[in-house]
């Protein structure tokens, strides 16, 4: 379980990095300092994570969320059909 959490954390980080290393760093900083969320503990409150992404990315949140989900689904051989991050974590039994 711990291994899976760390893998998901890395995949979240990797997905954010696709929008630029600077962007990844500022987003992670904001998540940690405003919401007390780190990639490693996102699964403890995935709804808050999505709300935070919406605050940061605005209308582009769904694009970022899909990018994260596709990476996770790809890693674990799951079928991602836009069910969203929260539902995907449930499938991984990480919630």
């Amino acid at each position: 379980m711990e291994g899976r959490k760390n893998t998901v954390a890395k995949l979240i980080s990797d997905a954010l990095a696709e929008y630029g290393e600077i962007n990844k760093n500022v987003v992670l900083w904001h998540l940690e300092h405003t919401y007390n969320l780190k990639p490693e503990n996102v699964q403890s409150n995935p709804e808050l994570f999505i709300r935070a992404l919406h605050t940061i990315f605005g209308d582009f949140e769904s694009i970022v969320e899909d990018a994260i989900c596709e990476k996770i689904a790809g890693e674990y051989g799951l079928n991602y059909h836009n069910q969203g991050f929260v539902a995907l974590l449930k499938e991984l039994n990480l919630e």
Partner: protein
Amino acid sequence: MELFSKNWPVQIPLKAGYVSLVEGNAGIGKTSFSLACCIESKKDCTYISYAEPETSILSKASLISPSSKIKIVRMMTGDPSRAFSTILNALENSELVVLDSLDAMFYGIRDEKDVRSFLQLIYNSVKGKSGSLLIISEGTSSASAQIRFVSDAIIQMSDEKIMDGKARCITVLKDRDSPVPPDPFYFTLSNGFMINEPLPQYFSSSIKNVNAIARPQEAGIDMQLTKWNRILTVFGEGVGHVVGSLFREWVAADYLLAGKRINYIISKIEYGDEIASNIYELVGSKTENLKVITADANSVDFDPLRYSAAMTSGHAGDNVVNMVDVLADEEFAVVNPQGYEKFVSHITPRSSSSKNLTLLYGSGDLNAAKVQQKYADVERRLIYKSGHLFWKTMKPPGPLYHVDVNAEKRTMTFTRMM
């Protein structure tokens, strides 16, 4: 908001979800403009400052409004994470956020890809929120070039050369949701931050009971009466009949209110009764101290001595001001130029003990004006540019002033452009 009202530029950055860019050279007034936006806003304001100390910002803000409440956050150049998070939290709080400056925040971010993607992140984070972001750009980084495409509004601040002087001006280059004003806005920093009042070209307001003109130092009534004999004000670029007449008549009213006597000399194309009536309205009552004289050089056969007698048939003695429309002399100057020059050279004594004054007004294109220029102690210019009146003493050289005419307050104020 009234279309292109005086305060239009400071309203633009307050639009919810807007990313506005203000750019200009160092010292032009970007900080003061941003603070004026904060004060104009009904919401809280967070000012993120990389360079300017808090005391300096608060001092500038207090000049604009003594009761301004602005939260200042000091930031160091380096990792932009803290600055970004501060912006986001303030936007969530529906605030106006000022970032001073973009170049400091982006210092060290060299890769163009990173610059563009971070700018896009900032832009997206503002959208859909009730707060707004105002970014100050010094123009020293690649981000300052790219932000122009991402911003909803671009406000450019610069110096404009006017009559050998300089006026600070704001030009709205871009406004995504509204039409862009066609003319610049002029402003001064002498009393904090103040945008000057424009004057409609076809000013039709009938103003009554004017207040004393807030004159520039070099144009004080008593000083002029004792120091100068003949002052020529050339109506230059854009000054039409309506604006020119308003200016002359208001100046006449000002001297009358100060207890002086006026000989108001007009050309044959104007009506004396109408002029007198206009000036009485400005003064607030009829007065025997005003005499309107219609110049007619033809009736005295363009003879300089007879013309001189006709032009001095009004009030005489001390504290008399002759206000002359130079157009009144034009026929004489064209038909008998030598006679006209003789008349001008003799009409007003160059006497330091004389307590009289002749104020001449007219277009610089007139033959009569060209002659008057040779004999004037002082030469001034009044121009109408982009909806604004500017005034300057050219000889001897003086500073540039903006003439603010406020019909509601019944004031004419000369504001030094600095």
